């Protein structure tokens, strides 16, 4: 299939040119990038015929030329109030418009067994361990992933050595600043926890309200046997930001991934979270909520593959949309042959606060194993009139009553966010969004 070469594709080809100069990286990487770019140009951006992009049209984005990153990003001054308060004094790695910022990061006091560095540095120092990851692409790649393979020049490398349990959370902060043009950047991150290792990772997306850009982020997450990753995404990107994220996670025997997401910002906020429960008794828990207003569009795809015996997945998501916002939630549980005793659950409830808002939710189960427990459920509804009247009958004004109920609706998705200050931070962010959505 040869997709039409859109202005978007053209601009990405132009962006790739300087990266392909000899000596820009290891030869295998140049090759891989060239191949990926070629594949991207042939394939183009995903369209709505792609089942995973059914409700998220990229037609408008495809017609826009994007510049390659933002040339000043490495030096630009960043308003300090953009940096999340919860990351102050913590281990932190910061990117501004796609560029690593040593001046804003805190990487000096890493505990033993912890590697946290920008991908650009890892490629300079020790490219060989990254070869397997960056060197090949698969049929599971879509246009964005291919583009990321072709163009990602940086990202996060986080490695925790076997048996190391990191007590304090590690923060990754992506900041979007207004740059005067539509900039695109591509970051590729690698998270690898050795056997029995454990860490909490907090990913923040923040930005100026008028910062129009496309951030294309790909995460590769590997949890070896008995490893545990707590991963919380707090997304309050600017109103013009387009975030396209894809995370591929593999869990070994008895490994545990505890994922939380609060999606509040952005114009287009997509996350395709793929979790492969490879090992026996591997366990994946996800909780998340999006709360949208105006013309925001959020699309979360949670795609779980049970491969290991007695593996467990448990996902519980909430969606709220007001104005002309559009929410998309897709939860798929695939239980492969041999994953006997697997237990998978996906539950999604949604609230529509306006007649122009829309939420599409699709739970799906595919089971090819025996003795499996699998459940799913999805609803879309409105605020409960009886509850509203009960609150008002006690003197609580309608707007406050609506906010209380929306907040309560989302609360279940925020249970388990740790540590407590981060949970409170999320609660505050949610509450501050509510006057916009439940006026």
């Amino acid at each position, binding site marked *: 299939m040869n997709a039409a070469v859109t202005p978007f594709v053209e601009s990405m080809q132009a962006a790739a040119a300087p990266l392909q100069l000899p000596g820009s990286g290891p030869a295998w990487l140049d090759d891989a990038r060239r191949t990926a770019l070629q594949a991207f140009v042939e394939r183009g951006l995903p369209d709505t015929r792609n089942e995973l992009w059914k409700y998220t049209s990229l037609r408008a984005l495809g017609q826009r030329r994007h510049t390659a990153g933002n040339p000043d990003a490495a030096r630009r001054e960043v308003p300090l109030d953009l940096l999340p308060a919860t990351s102050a004094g913590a281990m932190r790695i910061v990117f501004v418009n796609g560029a690593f910022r040593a001046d804003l990061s805190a990487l000096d006091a890493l505990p033993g067994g912890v590697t946290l560095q920008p991908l650009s540095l890892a490629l300079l120092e020790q490219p060989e361990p990254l070869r397997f990851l960056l060197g090949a692409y698969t049929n599971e790649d879509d246009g964005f992933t291919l583009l990321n393979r072709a163009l990602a020049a940086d990202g996060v490398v986080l490695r925790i050595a076997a048996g190391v349990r990191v007590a304090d959370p590690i923060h990754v902060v992506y900041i979007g600043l207004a740059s005067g043009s539509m900039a695109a950047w591509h970051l590729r991150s690698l998270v690898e926890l050795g056997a029995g290792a454990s860490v909490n990772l907090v990913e923040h997306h923040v930005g100026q309200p008028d910062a129009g850009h496309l951030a294309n982020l790909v995460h590769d997450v590997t949890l070896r046997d008995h490893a545990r990753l707590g991963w919380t995404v707090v997304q309050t990107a600017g109103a013009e930001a387009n975030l396209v994220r894809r995370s591929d996670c593999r869990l070994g025997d008895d490994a545990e991934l505890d994922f939380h997401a609060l999606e509040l910002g952005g114009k287009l906020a997509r996350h395709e979270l793929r979790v492969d429960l490879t090992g026996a008794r591997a366990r994946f828990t996800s909780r998340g909520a999006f709360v949208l207003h105006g013309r925001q569009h959020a699309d979360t795809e949670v795609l779980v593959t049970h491969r290991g015996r007695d593996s467990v997945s448990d996902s519980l998501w909430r969606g709220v949309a007001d104005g002309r916002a559009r929410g998309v939630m897709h939860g798929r549980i695939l239980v492969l042959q041999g994953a006997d005793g697997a237990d998978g659950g996906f539950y999604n409830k949604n609230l529509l606060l306006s007649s122009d808002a829309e939420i599409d939710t699709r739970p799906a189960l595919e089971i090819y194993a025996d003795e499996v427990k699998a459940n799913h459920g999805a609803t879309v509804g409105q605020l409960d009139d009886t509850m509203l009247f*009960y609150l*008002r*009958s*006690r003197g609580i004004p*309608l707007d406050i009553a609506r906010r209380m109920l929306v907040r*309560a609706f989302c609360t279940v998705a925020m249970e388990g966010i740790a540590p407590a200050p981060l949970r409170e931070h999320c609660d505050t962010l949610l509450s501050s969004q509510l006057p916009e959505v439940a006026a």
Partner: protein
Amino acid sequence: MLKIENLHARIAGKEILKGLSLEVNPGEVHAIMGPNGAGKSTLGNVLAGRPGYEVTAGSVSYDGRDLLTLEPEVRAAAGVFLAFQYPVEIPGVNNTYFLRAALNAQRKARGEEELDSMQFLKLVRGKVKDMGMPPDLLNRAVNEGFSGGEKKRNEVFQMALLEPRLAVLDETDSGLDIDALKQVADGVNALRSPDRAFVVITHYQRLLDYIVPDFVHVLSAGRIVESGDATLARELEAHGYAWVREQAHAEAQA
């Protein structure tokens, strides 16, 4: 305080109240009795301003204001309280947060100073103790996981905290065992005062042994067909509602 004149109301196109009139003065306790479907709960809901009830004729004035034009929260701030027949569970909304939001919203609407969290906790803990409510009540979500009896007691507890001037109790006695019934009655009796009035809606006379009303009204087919003092409730208990319907029928024929 409350003057209802010739009230007609309907829900989902069906007329339920058909010319109800009632006057309640401060300090009085009025019991409204009547068979199922007579319109008892409709009366409570119309007074509290529940959406979906359409008043087609008549008037309700409260302290000289046209009650029917006021939003439910404005009625609450003005001192109107409805103890729900079916209290609503609100998962995810913590009781303490809910009660403080309610009390402070009312205080703010009345131009009174709002209570800070310390002042509020002191007040609410005192009420929990006075009412014999379970101490973990304040940490739980509103009515979530409460038994039927607990929910009804929680309504009276909220009433004690919010100190309304006109309290409408909609079948607060239904589904209660005798101990819970006494607790509910004690809660109401403790609040009786010369400037506060109660409208107690009930199907059975039993509650009125503990909350002795000044007036008893019998509601039948959307109208008050009989009024009297507390002895009327006992007559009803002895003869049943059919007796009232026959009397009303006989009067209409005379």
